[in-house]
């Protein structure tokens, strides 16, 4: 039975297209005076965040509230989690409170999987980022944004044959992995660009191309996604200096000038201006970074609706 959204690898093309189509309808809600639908009335969604996050938590909270669900926010700081309570005891507490869905972010890769398959909770589990593993709703909102800009106007928008370049700290990026898998499912061609030290072991087995040369790759791209250098996850020297990193792997005005006219620039946030992206690029017409945030709410609404709205979920991984 399909119950959880833990990885974009669990999504078939039909699943992914259903989520994107549902999100497209829900996106219209943002333009209405009453931004609320009754679909999840009486359901409880718990945001369980073991790692700091502002935009993802707020985005999930807005999504659940617009669907009329009750939202409980459970952050590690200031809760019993900081007193040493285990994931299991936290899960049992949530189960006792009657949570219908748990949106979990955790520093350890695989924590949402553990939560979903341990038998501790009956809720639907949505992965909101686990360690350096996956962040499926971010990948879905990125794909949604790409479809809106690049998907054409046919009856069924698609990313078939579109070239997406993902640049930067792939090693520590759950966004890159989720995007690589999902975009491949949707028919796009993904190229990862990073210094050799920031590409993960085993990247050969991913459905992507890799390159160390940003200038050679971006003129053909339809979308360029810049990743943040995750200093907080680094325990050594991955590149000589920040300045050298920016020079070789940052997106500045000069590189932006080599892009095709229709190419969009994306960033999952939070941005470090001056590091992986310069301010003039981030604020340019090509940048869809603010739109990604708006689309995030619609995509998360779609995921929550499809998992919780009916008698059984319509998308997601196998139990």
């Amino acid at each position: 039975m399909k119950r959880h959204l833990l990885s974009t690898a669990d999504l078939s093309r039909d699943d992914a297209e259903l989520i994107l189509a549902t999100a497209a309808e829900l996106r219209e809600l943002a333009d209405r005076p009453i931004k609320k639908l009754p679909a999840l009335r009486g359901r409880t969604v718990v945001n369980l965040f073991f790692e700091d996050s502002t935009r993802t938590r707020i985005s999930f909270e807005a999504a659940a509230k617009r669907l009329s669900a009750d939202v409980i926010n459970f952050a590690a700081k200031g809760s019993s989690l900081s007193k040493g309570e285990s994931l299991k005891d936290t899960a049992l507490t949530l189960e006792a409170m009657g949570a219908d869905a748990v949106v979990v972010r955790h520093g350890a890769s695989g924590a949402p999987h553990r939560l979903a398959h341990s038998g501790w909770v009956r809720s639907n589990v949505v992965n909101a980022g686990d360690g350096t593993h996956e962040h499926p709703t971010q990948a879905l909102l990125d794909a949604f944004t790409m479809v809106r800009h690049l998907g054409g106007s046919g009856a069924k928008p698609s990313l078939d044959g579109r070239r997406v370049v993902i640049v930067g700290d792939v090693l520590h990026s759950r966004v890159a992995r989720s995007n690589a898998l999902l975009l491949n499912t949707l028919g796009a061609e993904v190229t990862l660009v990073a210094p050799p030290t920031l590409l993960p072991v085993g990247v050969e087995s991913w459905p992507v191309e890799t390159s160390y040369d940003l200038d050679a790759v971006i003129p053909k791209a339809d979308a360029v996604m810049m990743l943040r250098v995750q200093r907080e996850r680094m325990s050594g020297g991955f590149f000589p200096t920040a300045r050298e990193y920016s020079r070789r792997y940052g997106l500045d005005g000069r590189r932006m000038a080599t892009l095709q006219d229709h190419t969009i620039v994306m960033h999952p946030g939070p941005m470090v201006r001056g590091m992986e992206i310069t301010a003039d690029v981030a604020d340019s017409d090509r940048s869809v970074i603010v739109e990604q945030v708006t689309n995030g709410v619609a995509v998360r609404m779609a995921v929550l609706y499809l998992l919780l709205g009916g008698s059984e979920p319509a998308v997601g991984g196998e139990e």
Partner: protein
Amino acid sequence: MPAHPQHVPPSPTTDSPTSGPQASADISRVVLDDSDITRALTRIAHEILERNKGAADLVLLGIPTRGVPLAERIAARIAAVEGQDVPVGSLDVTMYRDDLRMKPARALLPTQIPASGIDGRTVVLVDDVLFSGRTIRAALDALNDIGRPRAVQLAVLVDRGHRELPIRADFVGKNLPTSLLERVKVSLGGIDEVDAVTIQGPATGEVTA
């Protein structure tokens, strides 16, 4: 489409194996053919104009799937008579259904509200079959979240009876007495191959509903 468990909505996917009058194992008979449907819609268009004393401030909202082409056809006839375009849109009621939790989550259908909005206007909801009335209740709730129309009226191609809520249609193409065991299937060019309304199911004489 009424949200009644016994009613199978005439959607292309669920009905494709039994579509077409002769494909069904059950007895299937055509009750309205394309010219009947054309005449019914023309009459409905005139009745709408008569009731509202013209086309001013009218908005037609079709309920997907088959309410939408019906709304467009009615709007085209109104435009032909009055020489004035009437805004047409669609209103998906999926999230407002009372049986949402009884089935797997369903894909949403398009909602397109005309740019002029519905505030202060007369909204005519258009659907293919009026059955339990639950779809229309959901549509009224959905309208409530979009704006405040001056009045809401209902036009349907077929009223097959068996209401479960105090809801009635203002404009009816054809009153069709049916048994609960029968299925009413509306086909419309553009979505389906032909224009037709058919009843599928056991012969009427043998049924005690």
